[in-house]
Protein backbone atom coordinates (compact mmCIF):
# COMPACT_ATOMS: atom_id res chain seq x y z
CA UNK A 1 0.00 0.00 0.00
CA UNK A 2 1.31 3.45 -0.87
CA UNK A 3 1.55 5.71 2.12
CA UNK A 4 -0.43 8.86 1.75
CA UNK A 5 1.81 11.81 1.17
CA UNK A 6 0.10 14.01 3.67
CA UNK A 7 -1.44 12.16 6.51
CA UNK A 8 -4.41 13.51 8.38
CA UNK A 9 -2.35 13.75 11.58
CA UNK A 10 1.27 14.90 11.76
CA UNK A 11 3.43 13.18 14.50
CA UNK A 12 6.83 14.02 15.79
CA UNK A 13 8.83 11.19 17.39
CA UNK A 14 8.53 12.88 20.72
CA UNK A 15 4.81 13.36 20.44
CA UNK A 16 4.23 9.81 19.33
CA UNK A 17 6.42 8.43 22.10
CA UNK A 18 4.64 10.59 24.66
CA UNK A 19 1.30 9.35 23.30
CA UNK A 20 2.33 5.70 23.65
CA UNK A 21 3.67 6.38 27.13
CA UNK A 22 0.33 7.82 28.14
CA UNK A 23 -1.48 4.80 26.76
CA UNK A 24 0.69 2.48 28.83
CA UNK A 25 0.60 4.54 32.00
CA UNK A 26 -3.15 4.93 31.92
CA UNK A 27 -3.57 1.17 31.78
CA UNK A 28 -3.88 0.22 35.42
CA UNK A 29 -3.11 -3.44 34.93
CA UNK A 30 0.27 -2.51 33.43
CA UNK A 31 1.06 -0.31 36.41
CA UNK A 32 0.94 -3.15 38.96
CA UNK A 33 2.31 -6.37 37.44
CA UNK A 34 4.16 -9.44 38.56
CA UNK A 35 6.25 -10.78 35.67
CA UNK A 36 7.92 -14.16 35.74
CA UNK A 37 11.17 -14.85 33.89
CA UNK A 38 14.90 -15.47 33.98
CA UNK A 39 17.41 -12.74 34.73
CA UNK A 40 20.03 -12.02 32.07
CA UNK A 41 22.44 -9.18 31.22
CA UNK A 42 22.43 -8.10 34.85
CA UNK A 43 24.38 -4.88 35.33
CA UNK A 44 25.02 -2.68 38.34
CA UNK A 45 26.74 0.55 37.35
CA UNK A 46 28.23 2.90 39.91
CA UNK A 47 24.99 4.90 39.97
CA UNK A 48 23.52 2.15 42.15
CA UNK A 49 20.61 1.48 39.81
CA UNK A 50 20.20 -2.12 38.60
CA UNK A 51 19.54 -3.07 34.98
CA UNK A 52 18.73 -6.48 33.58
CA UNK A 53 16.65 -8.26 30.99
CA UNK A 54 13.91 -10.61 32.00
CA UNK A 55 13.37 -13.31 29.41
CA UNK A 56 11.64 -16.54 28.71
CA UNK A 57 11.84 -18.83 25.71
CA UNK A 58 10.02 -16.42 23.42
CA UNK A 59 10.44 -12.85 24.62
CA UNK A 60 12.52 -10.38 26.58
CA UNK A 61 11.68 -7.42 28.80
CA UNK A 62 14.09 -4.66 29.83
CA UNK A 63 14.00 -4.01 33.58
CA UNK A 64 15.28 -1.19 35.79
CA UNK A 65 15.44 -1.10 39.56
CA UNK A 66 16.20 2.35 40.94
CA UNK A 67 18.88 2.64 43.60
CA UNK A 68 16.47 3.15 46.54
CA UNK A 69 14.38 0.09 45.63
CA UNK A 70 17.53 -1.94 44.92
CA UNK A 71 18.75 -1.31 48.46
CA UNK A 72 15.56 -2.77 49.92
CA UNK A 73 15.47 -5.82 47.69
CA UNK A 74 16.51 -8.55 50.16
CA UNK A 75 17.43 -10.92 47.33
CA UNK A 76 20.85 -11.21 45.70
CA UNK A 77 20.15 -11.08 41.95
CA UNK A 78 22.12 -13.29 39.60
CA UNK A 79 22.08 -13.99 35.90
CA UNK A 80 20.09 -17.13 35.22
CA UNK A 81 17.92 -16.74 38.29
CA UNK A 82 14.23 -17.55 37.87
CA UNK A 83 12.33 -14.75 39.50
CA UNK A 84 9.07 -12.91 39.76
CA UNK A 85 9.44 -9.16 39.37
CA UNK A 86 6.92 -6.58 40.44
CA UNK A 87 6.70 -3.10 38.99
CA UNK A 88 5.10 -0.86 36.39
CA UNK A 89 5.51 -0.67 32.64
CA UNK A 90 6.83 2.62 31.31
CA UNK A 91 8.79 4.04 28.40
CA UNK A 92 12.34 5.31 28.25
CA UNK A 93 11.77 7.98 25.62
CA UNK A 94 15.45 8.50 24.74
CA UNK A 95 15.72 5.06 23.20
CA UNK A 96 12.02 4.48 22.57
CA UNK A 97 12.25 1.46 24.79
CA UNK A 98 9.39 0.22 26.90
CA UNK A 99 10.57 -1.36 30.11
CA UNK A 100 9.59 -2.59 33.54
CA UNK A 101 10.37 -0.18 36.39
CA UNK A 102 10.70 -2.82 39.10
CA UNK A 103 10.43 -2.39 42.89
CA UNK A 104 10.30 -5.98 44.17
CA UNK A 105 11.95 -9.22 43.11
CA UNK A 106 11.31 -12.64 44.62
CA UNK A 107 12.60 -16.07 43.68
CA UNK A 108 10.10 -18.04 41.63
CA UNK A 109 7.61 -19.98 43.71
CA UNK A 110 7.66 -17.62 46.69
CA UNK A 111 4.39 -16.10 45.65
CA UNK A 112 2.56 -19.32 46.38
CA UNK A 113 4.60 -19.82 49.53
CA UNK A 114 3.71 -16.34 50.67
CA UNK A 115 0.01 -17.06 50.22
CA UNK A 116 0.44 -20.19 52.32
CA UNK A 117 2.38 -18.17 54.89
CA UNK A 118 -0.46 -15.66 55.21
CA UNK A 119 -3.06 -18.43 55.47
CA UNK A 120 -1.20 -20.24 58.27
CA UNK A 121 -0.39 -17.00 60.02
CA UNK A 122 -4.00 -15.90 60.24
CA UNK A 123 -5.11 -19.35 61.31
CA UNK A 124 -2.56 -19.65 64.14
CA UNK A 125 -3.10 -16.03 65.10
CA UNK A 126 -6.81 -16.72 65.47
CA UNK A 127 -5.92 -19.63 67.75
CA UNK A 128 -4.06 -17.18 69.97
CA UNK A 129 -0.65 -18.81 69.46
CA UNK A 130 1.01 -15.44 68.85
CA UNK A 131 -0.75 -13.56 71.63
CA UNK A 132 1.49 -11.11 73.54
CA UNK A 133 0.28 -12.47 76.89
CA UNK A 134 1.77 -15.86 76.00
CA UNK A 135 5.27 -14.36 75.82
CA UNK A 136 7.45 -15.27 78.77
CA UNK A 137 10.36 -13.20 80.02
CA UNK A 138 13.81 -14.28 78.93
CA UNK A 139 16.02 -15.09 81.94
CA UNK A 140 18.57 -12.36 82.50
CA UNK A 141 21.40 -14.61 83.66
CA UNK A 142 20.97 -18.10 82.17
CA UNK A 143 23.26 -20.90 83.22
CA UNK A 144 22.23 -23.34 80.54
CA UNK A 145 21.33 -22.30 77.01
CA UNK A 146 19.81 -24.73 74.52
CA UNK A 147 20.43 -24.28 70.81
CA UNK A 148 18.45 -25.80 67.98
CA UNK A 149 20.15 -25.33 64.64
CA UNK A 150 22.26 -27.12 62.06
CA UNK A 151 25.44 -28.57 63.54
CA UNK A 152 27.40 -27.49 60.51
CA UNK A 153 26.05 -24.05 59.67
CA UNK A 154 27.65 -20.66 60.09
CA UNK A 155 24.77 -19.74 62.38
CA UNK A 156 25.99 -22.12 65.09
CA UNK A 157 29.54 -20.87 64.70
CA UNK A 158 28.42 -17.24 65.02
CA UNK A 159 26.27 -17.99 68.05
CA UNK A 160 28.96 -19.95 69.89
CA UNK A 161 31.46 -17.17 69.23
CA UNK A 162 29.04 -14.58 70.52
CA UNK A 163 28.24 -16.62 73.64
CA UNK A 164 31.92 -17.34 74.25
CA UNK A 165 32.74 -13.65 74.06
CA UNK A 166 29.83 -12.44 76.17
CA UNK A 167 29.28 -15.14 78.81
CA UNK A 168 31.69 -18.09 78.72
CA UNK A 169 30.32 -19.26 82.10
CA UNK A 170 27.23 -20.58 80.40
CA UNK A 171 26.71 -24.20 79.47
CA UNK A 172 25.50 -24.85 75.94
CA UNK A 173 23.29 -27.80 75.03
CA UNK A 174 23.04 -28.26 71.31
CA UNK A 175 20.23 -30.22 69.70
CA UNK A 176 21.37 -30.39 66.10
CA UNK A 177 18.76 -30.57 63.38
CA UNK A 178 18.53 -30.10 59.66
CA UNK A 179 17.06 -26.65 59.04
CA UNK A 180 15.77 -27.01 55.51
CA UNK A 181 14.24 -29.68 53.35
CA UNK A 182 11.40 -32.09 53.87
CA UNK A 183 13.01 -33.77 56.91
CA UNK A 184 13.61 -30.46 58.69
CA UNK A 185 10.20 -29.83 60.33
CA UNK A 186 9.88 -33.14 62.23
CA UNK A 187 13.58 -33.00 63.13
CA UNK A 188 13.21 -29.46 64.48
CA UNK A 189 10.18 -30.48 66.55
CA UNK A 190 12.11 -33.43 67.94
CA UNK A 191 15.14 -31.26 68.70
CA UNK A 192 13.04 -28.71 70.60
CA UNK A 193 11.31 -31.42 72.62
CA UNK A 194 14.49 -33.31 73.51
CA UNK A 195 16.11 -30.02 74.51
CA UNK A 196 13.24 -29.15 76.84
CA UNK A 197 13.97 -32.41 78.70
CA UNK A 198 17.43 -31.05 79.52
CA UNK A 199 15.82 -28.04 81.24
CA UNK A 200 17.84 -25.21 79.75
CA UNK A 201 16.96 -21.69 80.91
CA UNK A 202 16.27 -20.58 77.35
CA UNK A 203 16.27 -22.12 73.87
CA UNK A 204 17.71 -20.44 70.81
CA UNK A 205 16.08 -21.55 67.57
CA UNK A 206 18.25 -20.33 64.74
CA UNK A 207 19.18 -20.50 61.10
CA UNK A 208 21.30 -18.34 58.84
CA UNK A 209 19.89 -16.33 55.94
CA UNK A 210 18.34 -17.86 52.86
CA UNK A 211 15.45 -17.60 50.46
CA UNK A 212 11.90 -17.83 51.69
CA UNK A 213 11.89 -21.43 50.53
CA UNK A 214 15.11 -22.13 52.48
CA UNK A 215 13.52 -20.76 55.62
CA UNK A 216 10.23 -22.53 55.02
CA UNK A 217 10.69 -25.14 57.76
CA UNK A 218 10.29 -22.31 60.26
CA UNK A 219 6.83 -21.64 58.85
CA UNK A 220 5.82 -25.27 59.19
CA UNK A 221 2.78 -25.61 61.41
CA UNK A 222 4.33 -28.46 63.44
CA UNK A 223 7.44 -26.45 64.22
CA UNK A 224 5.48 -23.31 65.03
CA UNK A 225 3.30 -25.26 67.46
CA UNK A 226 6.34 -26.91 69.07
CA UNK A 227 7.81 -23.44 69.67
CA UNK A 228 4.57 -22.14 71.13
CA UNK A 229 4.19 -25.18 73.41
CA UNK A 230 7.79 -25.29 74.62
CA UNK A 231 8.03 -25.22 78.40
CA UNK A 232 11.26 -23.28 78.07
CA UNK A 233 11.25 -19.72 76.68
CA UNK A 234 12.35 -19.62 73.04
CA UNK A 235 14.29 -16.92 71.20
CA UNK A 236 13.91 -17.27 67.45
CA UNK A 237 16.70 -15.94 65.24
CA UNK A 238 16.08 -17.09 61.69
CA UNK A 239 17.49 -15.45 58.55
CA UNK A 240 18.21 -11.74 58.33
CA UNK A 241 16.57 -8.62 59.73
CA UNK A 242 13.99 -8.53 56.95
CA UNK A 243 12.94 -12.16 57.20
CA UNK A 244 9.92 -12.98 59.30
CA UNK A 245 8.87 -16.57 59.94
CA UNK A 246 5.91 -17.88 61.87
CA UNK A 247 8.34 -19.21 64.48
CA UNK A 248 9.30 -15.58 65.10
CA UNK A 249 5.69 -14.85 65.98
CA UNK A 250 5.30 -17.96 68.16
CA UNK A 251 8.59 -17.49 70.02
CA UNK A 252 8.82 -15.56 73.27
CA UNK A 253 11.30 -13.21 71.66
CA UNK A 254 12.25 -12.57 68.03
CA UNK A 255 15.87 -11.88 67.18
CA UNK A 256 16.76 -10.45 63.76
CA UNK A 257 19.70 -12.89 63.31
CA UNK A 258 21.25 -15.92 65.05
CA UNK A 259 23.99 -13.70 66.49
CA UNK A 260 21.38 -11.32 67.86
CA UNK A 261 19.57 -14.28 69.42
CA UNK A 262 22.77 -15.22 71.26
CA UNK A 263 23.12 -11.60 72.41
CA UNK A 264 19.52 -11.41 73.63
CA UNK A 265 20.06 -14.63 75.61
CA UNK A 266 23.04 -13.11 77.43
CA UNK A 267 21.82 -9.78 78.73
CA UNK A 268 24.37 -9.98 81.51
CA UNK A 269 27.89 -10.34 80.16
CA UNK A 270 31.27 -11.17 81.62
CA UNK A 271 32.00 -7.43 81.88
CA UNK A 272 28.85 -6.87 83.92
CA UNK A 273 29.77 -9.75 86.20
CA UNK A 274 33.29 -8.40 86.74
CA UNK A 275 31.89 -4.97 87.57
CA UNK A 276 29.34 -6.49 89.94
CA UNK A 277 32.01 -8.58 91.63
CA UNK A 278 34.24 -5.55 92.03
CA UNK A 279 31.44 -3.63 93.67
CA UNK A 280 30.85 -6.49 96.11
CA UNK A 281 34.57 -6.52 96.90
CA UNK A 282 34.49 -2.80 97.60
CA UNK A 283 31.43 -3.09 99.78
CA UNK A 284 32.95 -6.02 101.65
CA UNK A 285 36.06 -4.01 102.48
CA UNK A 286 34.33 -0.76 103.32
CA UNK A 287 31.67 -2.38 105.49
CA UNK A 288 34.31 -4.30 107.42
CA UNK A 289 36.44 -1.18 107.80
CA UNK A 290 33.52 0.79 109.12
CA UNK A 291 32.68 -2.03 111.51
CA UNK A 292 36.26 -1.98 112.76
CA UNK A 293 36.08 1.79 113.22
CA UNK A 294 32.84 1.39 115.13
CA UNK A 295 34.39 -1.24 117.36
CA UNK A 296 37.36 1.03 117.92
CA UNK A 297 35.14 3.91 118.96
CA UNK A 298 33.22 1.70 121.35
CA UNK A 299 36.49 0.36 122.71
CA UNK A 300 38.02 3.76 123.39
CA UNK A 301 34.91 4.99 125.10
CA UNK A 302 34.95 1.86 127.25
CA UNK A 303 38.58 2.49 128.10
CA UNK A 304 37.85 5.99 129.31
CA UNK A 305 34.86 4.77 131.31
CA UNK A 306 37.07 2.14 132.83
CA UNK A 307 39.68 4.69 133.78
CA UNK A 308 37.05 6.76 135.47
CA UNK A 309 35.73 3.79 137.39
CA UNK A 310 39.16 2.44 138.30
CA UNK A 311 39.95 1.79 142.09
CA UNK A 312 43.35 3.24 141.33
CA UNK A 313 41.70 6.61 141.42
CA UNK A 314 40.25 5.96 144.91
CA UNK A 315 43.50 4.55 146.15
CA UNK A 316 45.35 7.62 144.99
CA UNK A 317 42.93 9.92 146.68
CA UNK A 318 43.01 7.84 149.89
CA UNK A 319 46.73 7.87 149.81
CA UNK A 320 46.68 11.60 149.51
CA UNK A 321 44.33 11.83 152.42
CA UNK A 322 46.56 9.67 154.55
CA UNK A 323 49.50 11.88 153.66
CA UNK A 324 47.50 14.90 154.55
CA UNK A 325 46.44 13.44 157.90
CA UNK A 326 49.95 12.33 158.65
CA UNK A 327 51.25 15.77 157.87
CA UNK A 328 48.64 17.36 160.04
CA UNK A 329 49.25 14.87 162.88
CA UNK A 330 52.94 15.47 162.73
CA UNK A 331 52.70 19.21 162.84
CA UNK A 332 50.20 19.22 165.66
CA UNK A 333 52.35 16.90 167.77
CA UNK A 334 55.45 19.01 167.30
CA UNK A 335 53.53 22.08 168.32
CA UNK A 336 52.27 20.44 171.42
CA UNK A 337 55.72 19.21 172.36
CA UNK A 338 57.09 22.67 171.99
CA UNK A 339 54.20 24.09 173.97
CA UNK A 340 54.81 21.60 176.74
CA UNK A 341 58.52 22.21 176.86
CA UNK A 342 57.99 25.94 177.11
CA UNK A 343 55.57 25.30 179.94
CA UNK A 344 58.04 23.00 181.66
CA UNK A 345 60.75 25.66 181.38
CA UNK A 346 58.49 28.24 183.03
CA UNK A 347 57.60 25.82 185.79
CA UNK A 348 61.25 25.06 186.35
CA UNK A 349 62.03 28.71 186.67
CA UNK A 350 59.13 29.27 189.03
CA UNK A 351 60.11 26.17 190.93
CA UNK A 352 63.68 27.38 191.24
CA UNK A 353 62.47 30.71 192.50
CA UNK A 354 60.34 28.99 195.10
CA UNK A 355 63.00 26.47 196.20
CA UNK A 356 63.69 26.63 199.98
CA UNK A 357 67.33 25.95 199.20
CA UNK A 358 67.52 29.40 197.68
CA UNK A 359 66.22 30.88 200.96
CA UNK A 360 68.69 28.80 202.98
CA UNK A 361 71.47 30.09 200.79
CA UNK A 362 70.64 33.53 201.92
CA UNK A 363 71.41 32.46 205.59
CA UNK A 364 68.07 31.18 206.76
CA UNK A 365 67.67 27.70 208.33
CA UNK A 366 64.82 25.27 208.61
CA UNK A 367 64.38 23.76 212.04
CA UNK A 368 62.36 20.58 212.48
CA UNK A 369 61.58 18.63 215.60
CA UNK A 370 63.25 15.30 215.69
CA UNK A 371 60.32 13.55 217.42
CA UNK A 372 57.60 14.34 214.96
CA UNK A 373 59.51 16.09 212.09
CA UNK A 374 57.29 19.17 212.34
CA UNK A 375 58.70 22.56 211.35
CA UNK A 376 59.56 24.88 214.18
CA UNK A 377 58.51 28.28 213.07
CA UNK A 378 57.63 29.70 216.56
CA UNK A 379 59.54 29.57 219.84
CA UNK A 380 56.81 27.68 221.55
CA UNK A 381 57.26 24.88 219.16
CA UNK A 382 60.85 24.26 220.02
CA UNK A 383 61.45 21.19 222.21
CA UNK A 384 63.96 18.40 222.60
CA UNK A 385 66.39 17.58 219.85
CA UNK A 386 65.80 19.45 216.65
CA UNK A 387 67.26 19.25 213.20
CA UNK A 388 68.66 22.45 211.69
CA UNK A 389 68.95 22.51 207.93
CA UNK A 390 71.15 25.08 206.28
CA UNK A 391 72.20 25.56 202.66
CA UNK A 392 74.91 22.92 202.58
CA UNK A 393 73.72 20.39 205.14
CA UNK A 394 72.16 19.94 208.61
CA UNK A 395 73.07 19.63 212.25
CA UNK A 396 71.34 18.86 215.46
CA UNK A 397 70.63 21.13 218.37
CA UNK A 398 69.07 20.57 221.78
CA UNK A 399 66.72 23.01 223.52
CA UNK A 400 68.44 24.17 226.59
Amino acid sequence: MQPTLFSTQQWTVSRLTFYIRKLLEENESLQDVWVQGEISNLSRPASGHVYFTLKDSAAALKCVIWKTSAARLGVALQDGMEVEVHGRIGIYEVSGQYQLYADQVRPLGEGALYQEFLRLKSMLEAEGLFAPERKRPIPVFPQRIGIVTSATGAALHDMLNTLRRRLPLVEIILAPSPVQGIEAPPALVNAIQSLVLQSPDVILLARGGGSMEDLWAFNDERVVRAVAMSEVPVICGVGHETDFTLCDFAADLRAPTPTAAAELATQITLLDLSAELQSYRNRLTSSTLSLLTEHKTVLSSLISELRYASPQRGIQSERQRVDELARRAHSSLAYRVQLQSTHVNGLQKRLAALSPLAVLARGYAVVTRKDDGSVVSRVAQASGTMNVRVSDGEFKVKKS
Partner: protein
Amino acid sequence: MPKPSSNKTEKPIDELTYEEALSELEGIVSALEGEASRNKLEDSIKLFERGQALAERCSALLEAAELKVKQVAGDVLIPFEEESE
Protein backbone atom coordinates in the same frame (compact mmCIF):
# COMPACT_ATOMS: atom_id res chain seq x y z
CA MET B 1 18.06 -10.17 109.71
CA PRO B 2 19.21 -13.45 108.23
CA LYS B 3 22.68 -14.13 109.44
CA PRO B 4 24.78 -16.22 107.11
CA SER B 5 27.24 -18.21 109.07
CA SER B 6 30.48 -19.31 107.56
CA ASN B 7 29.89 -22.96 108.28
CA LYS B 8 26.38 -23.07 106.82
CA THR B 9 27.69 -24.06 103.40
CA GLU B 10 29.01 -27.55 103.47
CA LYS B 11 30.74 -27.40 100.12
CA PRO B 12 34.34 -26.20 100.13
CA ILE B 13 34.75 -22.83 98.47
CA ASP B 14 36.59 -24.18 95.46
CA GLU B 15 33.65 -26.42 94.61
CA LEU B 16 31.09 -23.62 94.60
CA THR B 17 29.59 -22.52 91.30
CA TYR B 18 29.76 -18.87 90.37
CA GLU B 19 26.12 -18.34 91.34
CA GLU B 20 26.53 -20.09 94.69
CA ALA B 21 29.68 -18.17 95.56
CA LEU B 22 28.22 -14.86 94.42
CA SER B 23 24.97 -15.30 96.29
CA GLU B 24 26.79 -16.17 99.49
CA LEU B 25 29.08 -13.18 98.98
CA GLU B 26 26.02 -11.02 98.48
CA GLY B 27 24.57 -12.29 101.76
CA ILE B 28 27.81 -11.62 103.63
CA VAL B 29 28.12 -8.10 102.28
CA SER B 30 24.59 -7.20 103.30
CA ALA B 31 25.09 -8.85 106.69
CA LEU B 32 28.25 -6.82 107.28
CA GLU B 33 26.58 -3.66 106.06
CA GLY B 34 23.59 -4.16 108.32
CA GLU B 35 25.61 -5.30 111.29
CA ALA B 36 26.06 -3.19 114.37
CA SER B 37 29.31 -3.11 116.27
CA ARG B 38 27.67 -4.83 119.22
CA ASN B 39 28.06 -8.08 117.32
CA LYS B 40 31.18 -10.03 117.92
CA LEU B 41 34.14 -8.55 116.15
CA GLU B 42 35.52 -12.01 115.72
CA ASP B 43 32.38 -13.07 113.81
CA SER B 44 32.61 -10.01 111.57
CA ILE B 45 36.23 -10.73 110.79
CA LYS B 46 35.32 -14.32 109.97
CA LEU B 47 32.57 -13.12 107.64
CA PHE B 48 34.97 -10.73 105.99
CA GLU B 49 37.54 -13.47 105.43
CA ARG B 50 34.89 -15.80 104.04
CA GLY B 51 33.69 -12.97 101.77
CA GLN B 52 37.18 -12.39 100.47
CA ALA B 53 37.64 -16.05 99.71
CA LEU B 54 34.29 -16.11 97.88
CA ALA B 55 35.23 -13.06 95.84
CA GLU B 56 38.50 -14.76 94.90
CA ARG B 57 36.57 -17.85 93.87
CA CYS B 58 34.23 -15.79 91.69
CA SER B 59 36.99 -13.92 89.99
CA ALA B 60 38.96 -17.12 89.37
CA LEU B 61 35.85 -18.65 87.80
CA LEU B 62 35.33 -15.61 85.59
CA GLU B 63 38.91 -15.67 84.42
CA ALA B 64 39.00 -19.38 83.77
CA ALA B 65 35.54 -19.59 82.22
CA GLU B 66 35.46 -21.55 79.00
CA LEU B 67 32.27 -22.15 77.07
CA LYS B 68 31.16 -25.76 77.57
CA VAL B 69 29.24 -27.14 74.61
CA LYS B 70 27.38 -30.42 74.83
CA GLN B 71 25.12 -32.14 72.41
CA VAL B 72 21.87 -33.98 72.95
CA ALA B 73 22.19 -37.60 71.85
CA GLY B 74 18.97 -39.39 72.65
CA ASP B 75 18.49 -38.99 76.38
CA VAL B 76 22.09 -38.23 77.21
CA LEU B 77 24.53 -35.41 76.62
CA ILE B 78 27.81 -35.94 74.81
CA PRO B 79 30.61 -33.42 74.26
CA PHE B 80 30.25 -31.41 71.10
CA GLU B 81 33.34 -30.89 68.99
CA GLU B 82 33.20 -27.65 67.08
CA GLU B 83 34.60 -27.74 63.59
CA SER B 84 37.73 -25.66 63.46
CA GLU B 85 37.76 -22.91 60.90
